[in-house]
């Protein structure tokens, strides 16, 4: 390995005594201190506020935010899930469990989930269920704050999932025309 000699820059007198840059940096710090102090006393001003007043104020998530999975209904209040169990199959942590059952012979859909459970202690919010669902029945909604005192409450049952999912309009209404 060869040796290369680096030429040191020649410092001026002011640079050699350091004092100038120290004073300059201190000035910047004090400036920020007073600026922040002003914003803190002025927290009601939305433009300058730094801290969000959680839980009164909440973050507005983007539409593609991946929160808790939930089941949706169409505009006619029909639960869209037909219990095909593809989400159960694709779910990497095996959080989803479905017990399918049958409609009577007059209903063209034939099949629906008798019980549908998502174990939110296992869910990793990957969104594979939403991606795999052929019926557009399961979505990851913006619900992200899951706090319960009892672990059993983390197992979301069918009623809870439909309540979280709400209604999403269906353009095709495939089963209505069957």
């Amino acid at each position, binding site marked *: 390995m060869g040796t290369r000699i680096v030429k040191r820059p020649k410092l001026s007198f002011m640079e050699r005594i350091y004092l100038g840059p120290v004073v300059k940096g201190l000035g910047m710090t004090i400036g920020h201190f007073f600026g922040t102090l002003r914003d803190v006393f002025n927290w009601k001003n939305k433009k300058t506020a730094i801290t969000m007043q959680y839980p009164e104020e909440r973050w507005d998530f983007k539409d593609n935010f991946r929160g808790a999975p939930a089941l949706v209904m169409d505009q006619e209040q029909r639960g869209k899930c037909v219990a*095909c169990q593809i989400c159960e199959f694709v779910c990497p942590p095996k959080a989803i469990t479905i017990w399918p*059952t*049958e409609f009577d012979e007059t209903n063209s*859909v034939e099949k629906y989930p008798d019980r549908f459970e998502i174990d939110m202690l296992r869910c990793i919010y990957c969104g594979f269920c939403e991606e795999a669902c052929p019926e557009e029945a399961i979505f990851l909604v913006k619900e992200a704050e899951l706090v319960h005192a009892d672990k059993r409450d983390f197992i979301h049952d069918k009623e809870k999932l439909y309540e979280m999912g709400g209604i999403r309009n269906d353009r095709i209404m495939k089963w209505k025309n069957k």
Partner: protein
Amino acid sequence: MSDNGHVTLTIDGKEATVPAGINVIEAAKQVGIEVPHYCYHPRLSVVGNCRVCLCEIEGVGQLQIGCNTLVRDGMVVNTTNERVSRMREGVMEFLLINHPLDCTICDQAGECKLQDYAVDHGSGITRFEFDKGKKPKNISWGDRVVFDAERCILCTRCVRFLDEIAGTDEISIDHRGEKSQLVVRGDGKLTSPYQMNIIDLCPVGALTSRDFRFKSRVWFMKFTPTIDTSDARGCNVVAGTRDNRMLRMVPRYNPNVNDYWMSDHGRLHYAFVNDEDRIVMPTAGGKPAPYPVALSRAQAVLEGARDEGILCVASSYMTNEELFALKGVCDALGVEDRYFLLPMGEGDDLLIHPEKAPNARGCRLAGFRDAPDDWSSQEFGALLYVKPRELIELPAEVIERCKKKVVFSLTKHASDVNIPLTTWVEKDGTMVSAGDRVQCVRQGMVYEPTLLTERVVLDRLHTLLDPAFKGASTAVLAFQRMADEHPALDGLTWLSVGLLGAKLNKAEALA
């Protein structure tokens, strides 16, 4: 034609020598090439209406269907070239024109030939812009089969099966062209005792089982090759289980026993496996007791009754290994009266056997005698009883004549020592079916992790009675030990019995 009734042909560049008289699909199968087919089935007549097995035969202008083209010497067949795959793509597009997008609610999904071939040979898109044809859905054909006319591709396998194999000829095609639809004659309900075979035959989801419907997706299930234990025929089956519960049985090909078929009775004979009332822990004196406690109680009961005589009644649902373990216990106790119970019923010429238990021959092999019609009024000191399934029971007065009772049963049974039984899908073992065939049963599930199989329990009891005895650790070793001992099983090994079973090598009749 070349020698020995064989012909040599070339399929996709591979030279194959196959028996004369078979068709191109079978010949291709022999060299490991799969020609897709819906309507063709090796045991049914050829109709050639699905058109998906079209192959190119060199020297013949148009493409020919593989199912109805017999092999010739020097024939050159192409099953995958550009022309054939374009044709297949077209055929798949036609088949899918009126097929509903039902896979999400269709029970066949996962084992559906239409799905498989659409992926393998289809174009992936449809050019059909009009409304799909509408036909009735979810029609009940009796209490076993559900029919969906929209999913049907009119391959007529079910029609031919009921006509040619089951002999009841109940289904036919009604209407014409696009409106063609399967109908059942008479009141629209099937009557054949073999009707559920059409569910397996159906390559699509048009025919589904009322029993299995929506219970589980096939891709979640575990499949275990075993045999059917509803009668002495011992049809070869694949048992489907999920989460340690039995969900269905479908026939498994065995040319020596059941071919591709099985009876509905056998197929539906599994409800007792999932019974919630089954006992999972032994009881001694009416109180739950762990196995060691229950077994030492049983030992005390049986040894105490040695002078007054012991009656041993085996069940014809036990495996050979278990019967030989029971025989060992009987020998250790010096039991003279060894019987087994055998339920009888109706039989027919095809597959249903009059003996409604799988292993009466194994019982005879292990030296148990057929239970007499009129039991003598002799009193016994103890009863060692392995209770068969609900079809037959030891008469109550015979049980009463025994002072103490050691009973193996699936559900609770009044006795001094009650030990839980396991069903045939919970253990490995062999049984001797009709025609003196030794066939294996294999473990596909565990009902409850604490349960021990009867063979282990009986071997442990034997060790308690005779400390010099040491039981075999697995069913395979138990079978080997049995085969070494008994001349009828001489030369048989677990592997030679294998998936298809093997004949007993002996002259004495067990039937």
